[in-house]
Every structure is written in structure tokens, then in C-alpha cells.
């Protein structure tokens, strides 16, 4: 596997998705970096342990973590960074294979692919949520201080 090429391509792809989703212009490079880190961690984990569900979880976790840090840095909503970064992890080929096998009447194989695609989507969701919870715990003290400053009650 060609690491620099994959890094460059995933950077380019995530940046291009930033343009499609109309991310603010000065964050486009950061969007690319988020996508690149997610994809590289996914690939590294996949090559090391050969489990696409766990690898996707690790990738989504990395995406959400980096997106959170960038969101704090740029003072922008986290969604600006995370959306483009998630796209490379979406199980497009598995869903495609499931659809193809359904059309060709291979329902057993289609079920296997569909279940795999479902598990991978679930892993993306869990990765996002875990990173969110972690970051909330880290930033809770900071957030409380800010809320006290602007006179907002904790509810």
C-alpha cells in the first residue's frame, strides 16, 4: 500500500467534499486534514487487525476527535469539520455489493453484505458518539466556567 498517495487522495477527496457542502473557505484545508486522519487511521487499523467494523470505529473516532479540536480552535460548529471527514468511511462498496447481489437473486450473499454495511454504519455512529462523550468530559469544566461568565444557568 502506498501511504503518501492514499494520504494525498483522502486529503483531496475530503477537501472536495468541503466544497460540495460549502464549508467556509478558510476551513477547507482543515476539512481535508480531518478526512485524511480518519482514512489513514482506518486503513492502518484495517491492515493491522483485518476487521473493517473496528477499523471504521477507530476512523470515525479520530474524525470526531480532530473535528472537535479544530472546532475549538476556529470557534465554529464541529459539524463544519466532521461531515466531510466521515464520507470516506461510509460503506459504499458493501452497500453496492449488497444491492448487486439482490438484483442477481443471490439473497444469501446480499444479506451478508447488507449486515456488514449496517455494522459499519453503526460503527461510524458509535465512533462519533464516543468521541463526543470524551470531549464533553474534557471540556465540561471549561464550558461551566464560560456559562457562569455569561450568566447562564445549568439545565
Amino acid at each position, binding site marked *: 500500500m502506498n501511504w503518501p498517495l492514499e494520504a494525498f487522495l483522502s486529503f*483531496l477527496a475530503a477537501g*472536495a467534499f468541503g466544497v460540495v457542502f460549502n464549508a467556509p473557505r478558510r476551513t477547507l484545508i482543515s476539512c481535508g486534514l480531518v478526512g485524511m486522519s480518519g482514512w489513514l487511521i482506518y486503513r492502518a487499523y484495517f491492515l493491522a487487525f483485518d476487521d473493517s467494523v473496528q477499523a471504521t470505529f477507530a476512523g470515525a473516532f479520530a474524525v470526531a476527535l480532530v473535528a472537535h479540536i479544530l472546532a475549538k480552535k476556529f470557534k465554529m460548529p464541529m459539524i463544519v469539520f466532521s461531515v466531510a471527514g466521515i464520507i470516506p468511511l461510509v460503506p459504499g462498496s458493501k452497500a453496492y455489493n449488497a444491492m448487486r447481489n439482490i438484483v442477481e437473486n443471490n439473497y444469501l450473499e446480499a444479506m451478508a453484505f447488507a449486515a456488514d454495511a449496517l455494522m459499519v454504519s453503526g460503527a461510524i455512529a458509535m465512533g462519533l458518539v464516543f468521541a463526543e462523550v470524551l470531549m464533553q468530559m474534557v471540556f465540561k469544566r471549561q464550558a461551566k466556567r464560560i456559562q457562569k461568565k455569561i450568566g447562564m444557568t445549568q439545565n
Partner: protein
Amino acid sequence: MTQIVETRRELALDCFLLAGKIMMESGAETYRIEDTMIRMAASQKMMDCHCFITPTGIMFSPSDELATRFVRINNRRTDLEQVALVNAVSRKLVAGELTLQQAYEEMQRIDQNDYMFPLQLQVLAAAMASGCFLILLGGGWADLPFAFLIGGTAFYIVEMILEKTRVKFFAEFIGALAIGASASLVIYAGLGQDLDTIMIGSVMPLVPGLLITNAVRDLMAGHFVSGLSKGAEAFLTAFAIGAGIALVLSF
């Protein structure tokens, strides 16, 4: 004196609802919209506010004396720049850098301006993303120009049909159909090598990424109504794409 206070409160309500409307139309998460509106209200000394947000409408109830207001949200698209801009304005309002009047004018300017990248650039970006995904998913370099062309064209077709008909699922179905048909043609003409990777790469720009992430985050934050409806939208989009591809494959 009371009259002035009353108009000021009306202005505040308009401002909050406009902020919520812009954010929902550009694809922000539900809990962020709610958080933004409540924070803005708190900065204007309006405690004890309630808002209920769904992808198709926002209700905001300021307090006992003032009437509850409602705005309808008709069309949603993905425009992260507007989300970031409204967020910046609300931060400034909460920090006291902007007055309510200034913030409202700023919101109106954001609402009226069009911040989208030009369509040619978006099509180029979609084409580039398709090409990148083709290689990332293990396709050969010989297929690269086809994925580039097909991905860009499909994105353009979807945008055009969306503009004409306003039916999102139909536009995505036709886009996927065009991808499938042109990828098959390229293979039958003996130019391309691998049908599967060309199709998967070209389909990637249509994937409902924003909806998937938003649906999950809304569900986790306890906004079940918007989480489920966004999830349904994502599922229908995926289904439309899958049906378009499947129709071609079945021949």
C-alpha cells in the same frame, strides 16, 4: 416605556427565530440550534424560554406574557458556511459585542446572501472526489478519467433536476441511473476495466453524509423527532441511489 420594551422583545423574537430558521435550512444539528436560540434568549434577559425544533418547523415560547411564535422551514440544503456565520453572530450577541438590532440586521444579510460556491466549482469538486475515491477503493488508474467525468456529470444532473422539480429523491434516483448507464456503456465500449469501482466512486458525491451524522447526533442528544426524520431522509436517499444503480444492473 413599556411600548419600547415590547417592540424590543418582538425584535428579539424575530432575531432568534430567523437564526434558527437559517441554521435549520443550512443543515445544522437540532441540539445546536436549540442551544443557540436559548443562549441568545438568555443574553437578552429572557429566562425560562422553551423551543421545540423539528426539521420542518421551529416553535419558540419566550415566557408567560409573550405569545408563542412559529416558523415553517420549507427547503433544506447543505450550506455549512451559513451555519458558521450565524454561529459567529450569536456568539458576538451573547458576548455583548453586537446589539440586538445589529445582530438582526446581520442575520437578515446572511439570510439574503448566497454563500454557495459557484456550481462549476462544485461540479469540479464532485468530479475530483469521485476520482479520488476510485483510486482509494482499489480501482485502476485507467478508469480514473471515466469516474471523474461520470461523477461530475451525475452531480450536475442531480443539481439541475433538483432546481427544476424540487423532488430530492427523484433527482438522486435519476442521477444514480445516469451513473449506472454511463458506467455500463464505458465498460461495453471496452474503454473501462472495472464496472464496480467506477460506479462506487461516481456515486460517492451523492451520499447523504450530513444527514447520517446529524441523525445520529440528534438521536444521542435526545431529539428523537428530528433524529428519526433525518434518519428517514438519509435512508430514502440511500434507497433512491441504490434503486437507480439496481435498475441498471438488472439488465
